């Protein structure tokens, strides 16, 4: 489980996160949602340690990341897998080399063992016979799946996904969402998904935090979000005219 307690973060005296607290449960897909500029990405970077928080705690199964030395932080980094918005695959490496990379840095496997593990991960995300292609030679959906394969190569305890569906068509987006959820259950990981895609919220939102102007404004699950009275959440969920009319008819 990852717990964040009273997180504050500001840049150049502009407050971005204000007293944000939340528990991301193990074995669930935890979603952080909110409008653009609400502080989702900054919150994620604070949780994974790319930004230091001004105040507050980030606890990885009780281990406070903020108070750790850089060397100790590395032990947590090795337990984290991350899927970036743009996949962030190394474009100078082939698909297979991308997945082997974390293994070559942090495991004592032989070359054959690493190749076997990479192939297992690629098969798990349904990538076949693409090992020798470069990321630029694959589609956006494939790149996301390869990035997931890379993220799970070291059997991480925590998986972060920053807008995993951006740039994907709705059908591929749902495939990626379901893959993330399946892997979360299969490996009993603590998964945090940053998104503003309502399809994702309704498909995999088991534990949701709604960030609004840098604050944890609302929390619940995919069932409660569609029936909440909160105006700000409703403005987000039912943003389009079509959805507003749909809700009126439902009511």
């Amino acid at each position, binding site marked *: 489980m990852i717990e964040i307690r009273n997180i504050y973060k500001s840049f150049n005296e502009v407050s971005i996160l204000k007293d944000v607290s939340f528990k991301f449960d193990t074995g669930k897909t935890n979603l952080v949602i909110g409008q653009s500029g609400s502080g989702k990405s900054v919150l994620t970077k604070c949780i994974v*340690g790319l930004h230091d928080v001004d105040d507050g705690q980030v606890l990885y199964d009780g281990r406070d990341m903020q108070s750790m030395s850089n060397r100790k932080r590395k032990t947590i980094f090795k337990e984290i897998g991350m899927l970036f918005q743009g996949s962030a695959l190394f474009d100078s490496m082939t698909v297979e080399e991308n997945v082997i990379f974390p293994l070559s840095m942090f495991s004592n496997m032989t070359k054959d063992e690493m190749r076997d593990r990479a192939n297992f991960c690629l098969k798990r995300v349904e990538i076949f016979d693409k090992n020798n292609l470069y990321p630029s030679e694959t589609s956006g959906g494939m790149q996301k799946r390869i990035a997931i394969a890379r993220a799970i190569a070291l059997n991480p305890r925590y998986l972060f996904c920053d807008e995993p569906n951006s740039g994907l068509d709705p059908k591929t987006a749902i495939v990626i969402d379901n893959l993330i959820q399946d892997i979360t259950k299969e490996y009993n990981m603590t998964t945090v998904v940053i998104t503003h895609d309502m399809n994702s919220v309704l498909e995999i939102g088991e534990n949701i935090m709604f960030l609004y102007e840098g604050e944890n404004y609302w929390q619940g699950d995919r069932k409660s979000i569609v029936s909440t009275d909160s105006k700000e959440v409703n403005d987000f969920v039912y943003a389009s005219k079509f959805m507003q009319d749909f809700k009126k008819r439902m009511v």
Partner: protein
Amino acid sequence: MTFIQRIGEYSLMLGGAFSRPDKLKVFWKRCVDEVMNLGVNSMGIVFIISIFMGMVITIQTASNIDSELIPKYTVGFTARQTIVLEFSPTIISLILAGIVGSRISSELGSMRVTEQIDALEIMGVNSKNYLVLPKILGFMFILPFIIIYSMVLGLFGGWVVGMASGIISSADYIYGLQYWFEPFSIFYALIKTVLFAFIIASVSSYYGYYVKGGSLEVGKASTKAVIWSSIAILFVNYLVTQLLLID
């Protein structure tokens, strides 16, 4: 950001880069890759520039010697001094600051804006050590070889044009090359070269590594990398010349 802040950020980058690699085997492979990428791939352009500059230096020197009192071998002597002391180490380094510097800066800048550097950091990899140090060490290793290669080609180009145009005989040119030769001049050129390699790789890495924004900023960072590398090379060239050649 002020100049002093940039110096501080540059120093911090170097501090992060010069640390113990996460895995020596991977680090060694990265160094070899950088030797190939930054050095061997520059050989073609260095070949062309050196040959032609050697030819031009020889023709210019010969055409400016009018007096019969000045011996013919002076052409070879002047070509050697020009090529060994300044043209190959300094001018070729300035040209490589443009070619290699912009390559390093745009490579790291692209990695930054596409979050590849963040991905390395989150994996627990020291990205400065993994990305920057192999470039610095690899280029410091290969540039002296490139410069020696350039010297040989430049002198060869001078000999070819001297023979072809008949402005100097082969014997005079070769005598001029050997005349009053001090091995220290090669040492001086190579000392400069190693320093220039460090400047080119580290300054360009700095501008690429800290890019913020998108592709436009990557382009701007490449330009700044070339400008500041060139300025630093010229300054260090003056400093080293003053220190090593003036008693």
